[in-house]
């Protein structure tokens, strides 16, 4: 009880002196702010990429790939595709056919609007016409859908924004044929340029006889095991099934790892710098208060409350830096569009990231306050008073 009373009194004294030491206090706040802002905005890349990839994922949807492969390395021959269509546990669509969509993915070049630089985007041939299901995430914003059997494409609105040659009526030479853009569509928050076409015409253009992968809707989430068993028990198939979320996360695991590594690497170095600055500032605060602390000690304050109050002051000074840093990251970078490695998404400053930023700042305050707190507790009472 005594400790607590002394501690609170000391803390009140320290904080009332804040305005007399603007330099030292601002050094701590600015250092922490920049470290937290950088960490949070860099982590926002990873969370933005993840959010984009997981947008529109359904629990009851599964992805079928060839064994051990993902993305464009996967391939499903036509004869195996028939087996997939007849798998148990798959829902029937509104047209009475199994709700299975086979996709043939081709990577195509595009050129950026402003820089004219080349980048790649996926052209996906689908066997199930889009927009037929009312619950579909896809929304046609302009034009119409492609007609099966024709060289027609529909593109997401980000394609139009980022690249040249995606206006309705534009023709793109792909695989020796001219393809016409006939519609634009949106898919929730997705920033990636994706172009859809009829799978059969795309495969005949590219002389291919295999689909890349399949997505299927299950009758219910519980039917996953049934599909998995059916695939495993058929030795002629080289296919495996994954939940949609799992399959999509696999696709960005490497990118996410890289982004998070960079964020924590840079964030840690900046945190070390900010902590060093905090130590220096707190040392100078303690030094300038030597007489005050010695006096307090002389009239009966213990060394533990003195140390605790300095530590607490350090943490309290780091806190506004943390909030400011998160606010800055949010104001400057939240929902900003970037496209590293040809993958476009919006930065996403989530509440979880804000919490990470605050925890990070509190750690800086705690570590930065340790040594100065010890020094404050060790102020030799008699010499400090005599020097005054």
């Amino acid at each position: 009880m005594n400790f607590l009373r002394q501690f609170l009194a000391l803390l009140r004294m320290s904080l009332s002196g804040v305005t007399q030491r603007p330099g030292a206090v601002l050094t701590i706040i600015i250092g922490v702010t920049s470290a937290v802002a950088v960490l949070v905005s860099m982590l926002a890349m990873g969370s933005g990429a993840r959010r984009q990839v997981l947008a529109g994922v359904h629990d009851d949807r599964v992805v079928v790939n060839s064994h051990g492969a993902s993305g464009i390395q996967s391939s499903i021959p036509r004869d195996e595709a028939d087996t997939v269509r007849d798998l148990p546990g798959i829902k029937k669509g509104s047209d009475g056919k199994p709700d299975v969509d086979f996709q043939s993915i081709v990577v195509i070049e595009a050129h950026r609007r402003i820089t004219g630089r080349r980048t790649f985007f996926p052209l996906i041939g689908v066997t199930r016409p889009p927009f037929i299901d009312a619950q579909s995430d896809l929304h046609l914003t302009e034009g119409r859908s492609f007609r099966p059997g024709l060289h027609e494409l529909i593109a997401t609105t980000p394609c139009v924004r980022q690249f040249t040659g995606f206006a309705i009526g534009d023709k793109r030479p792909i695989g020796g044929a001219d393809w016409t853009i006939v519609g634009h569509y949106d898919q929730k928050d997705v920033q990636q340029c994706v172009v859809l076409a009829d799978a059969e015409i795309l495969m005949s253009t590219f002389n291919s006889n295999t689909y890349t992968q399949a997505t299927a809707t299950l009758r219910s989430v519980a039917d996953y095991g049934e599909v998995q068993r059916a695939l495993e028990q058929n030795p002629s198939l080289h296919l495996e099934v994954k939940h949609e979320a799992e399959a999509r996360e696999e696709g960005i695991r490497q990118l996410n790892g890289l982004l998070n590594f960079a964020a924590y690497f840079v964030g840690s170095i900046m945190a070390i710098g900010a902590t060093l600055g905090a130590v220096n500032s707190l040392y100078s605060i303690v030094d300038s208060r030597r007489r005050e602390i010695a006096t307090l000690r002389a009239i009966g304050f213990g060394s533990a409350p003195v140390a605790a109050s300095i530590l607490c002051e350090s943490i309290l000074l780091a806190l506004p830096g943390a909030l400011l840093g998160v606010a800055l990251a949010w104001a400057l970078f939240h929902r900003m569009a970037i496209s590293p490695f040809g993958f476009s998404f919006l930065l996403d400053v989530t509440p979880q990231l804000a919490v990470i930023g605050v925890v990070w700042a509190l750690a800086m305050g705690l570590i930065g306050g340790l040594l100065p707190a010890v020094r404050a507790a060790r102020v030799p009472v008699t010499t400090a008073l005599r020097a005054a």
Partner: protein
Amino acid sequence: MKYLPLIWSGLWRKPGRTVLIFLQVAVAFALFGVLQGLKTGVAHAVAAARADLLIVHSRLSFIMQSLPSGLLGQIRAVPGVKMAIPVELTFGTYQKPDQGIGVVAVTPDEDWQSAFTYTIPPEYLAAFRKSRTAMLVRDVVAEKYHWKIGDHIPLQLPVAQHNGSSDWAFDVVGTFTDSDIGGGRYIVLVSYPYFDEARAAKKGTVNHFNVTVSDPKLAPQVADAIDARFVNSSHETKTESLREMAQSSMQAIGDFDFLIRAVVGAVLVALLFATTTMMAQSIHERIPELAVVKTLGFTDRAVFLLILAEALVVFLAGAVCGLLLATLTLPLAARFVHGLSMPGIVVAMGLALGILVALVSASIPAALAARLRVATALAGHRAA
């Protein structure tokens, strides 16, 4: 020179503070070095990529589409072409599905390696040409899986052999290094004639051709001539130099420019502020001493320069240590960008920046010190 002891004693007046400032500067410049080094290093690596090595691939799609190997004769007939080597690519796995291996099948003609970015010792080259099932392994692959020369390595490839099996096996005959920044990391080289003969489907096709030109200056014209040869044919080609390809594969880093600039900016602002206040605090505490120094006959200018010199010493020492640290850590980033090393220009930029920040952050405290009036400083130092 005679001022050195004075600067030195000024620095060590409060050793703790000086060391902390030094560490802060070192940390800031280590970060600057890594970020700026990454950016400039990538630009240098792209500039160093061979512009005289052309890659002829299908105009349809570089990744998916193959070309008939029969185009080889026509490519070789294009004026200016020195050598053309067919290259087939496939992506397999070793033992586990997550242990991917890029398989590059090449025709080991005489001197074929000059059309690649690989460095291969002559004895390994000879061994590779001698055996049909020979495999050359990139050094990082051999290290990762502990493969040795003479090992018989099974690989699972998405390519069926005549007997329907997709289990392949090759004999390790040597290792090689790769200087290409855009290429795969875990790659092995095998013989294209053997690979093509053994596979059941897609016979006689390749992914691309590697072409060297007799006059590097004419590389763009040769590239256009090759593409012109196949225009309107069923196999239209697109020919690019390795440098152009490196440019497009590394442009992703360019997208991070804004971020690198923002981070470096934040680091420098925080550093500038921290050091300025520390210097001001230090000057404040030393008012009586500075007054004594002035009484002894130091001019205002001398005191000003003295304070600047102190800051310069700490900052330069910190910047040198930080940049050294960055130079040592940057090769770790070669995990993501092959062959990255610290460009000298970044070190020079860092040192210049260090001097600049030192002068800016010390100038206000130094000016304060220079303008001290001896009488008031000596008399009122308690109140100060």
